[in-house]
């Protein structure tokens, strides 16, 4: 069974540009989460989808971040325009049930904004 996959694994962009990260959850997992780790600090929750609906987006830092999950399958996270402080590792995770008891994580996307 394929795990959670994220693309790209690395992205280097200039300040002001746009970047779109993609996450493919494990097939059949309705719950999809985005997390971010900035500058070696703690991994922070960004948002949670249940199928195509945003269940909780309280962790989204500002309106430069837009997450979508059209059709309830893969999800994208767009940063527009990117700022220096957006650099970090963006993790995606999925689970069959809500509540965070059994999350499967992707390998993350390392985003560097120069």
């Amino acid at each position, binding site marked *: 069974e394929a795990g959670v996959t994220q693309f790209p694994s690395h992205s280097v962009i200039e300040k002001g540009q746009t970047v779109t990260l993609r996450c493919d959850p494990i097939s059949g997992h309705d719950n999809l989460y985005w997390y971010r780790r900035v500058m070696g600090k703690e*991994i922070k929750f960004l948002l949670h989808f249940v199928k195509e609906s945003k269940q909780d987006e*309280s962790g989204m830092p500002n309106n430069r971040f837009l997450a979508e999950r059209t059709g309830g399958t893969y999800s994208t996270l767009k940063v527009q325009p990117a700022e220096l402080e957006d650099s970090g590792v963006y993790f995606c995770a999925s689970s069959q049930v809500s509540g*965070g*008891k059994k999350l499967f*994580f*992707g390998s993350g996307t390392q985003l560097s904004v120069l």
Partner: protein
Amino acid sequence: AQSVSQHNHHVILSEAASLELGCNYSYGGTVNLFWYVQYPGQHLQLLLKYFSGDPLVKGIKGFEAEFIKSKFSFNLRKPSVQWSDTAEYFCAVNAPGASGSARQLTFGSGTQLTVLP
């Protein structure tokens, strides 16, 4: 809001040494507790978890953790580390009965463990 503290940012040990990584959380209600590990170049993997019952939980690869409710702690232990345990370890907590972001996983800042051969 809940928070998780991992006091050791980087731990260096020789093989066969014993390991204890500290984790403290702040939340007054019922919590689920987790330790995740990220080996170099790999994704985050669940090492062990505590939901209820016996506060001493055993995970994969000989790791265990003890939940001490009075101390709000969930320290990770291994009696004898191996070179292959070199990785970054994250403690995490969520409050499944809470509302809002408290239901989601809150991570500590991670502890990098380096085991010298």
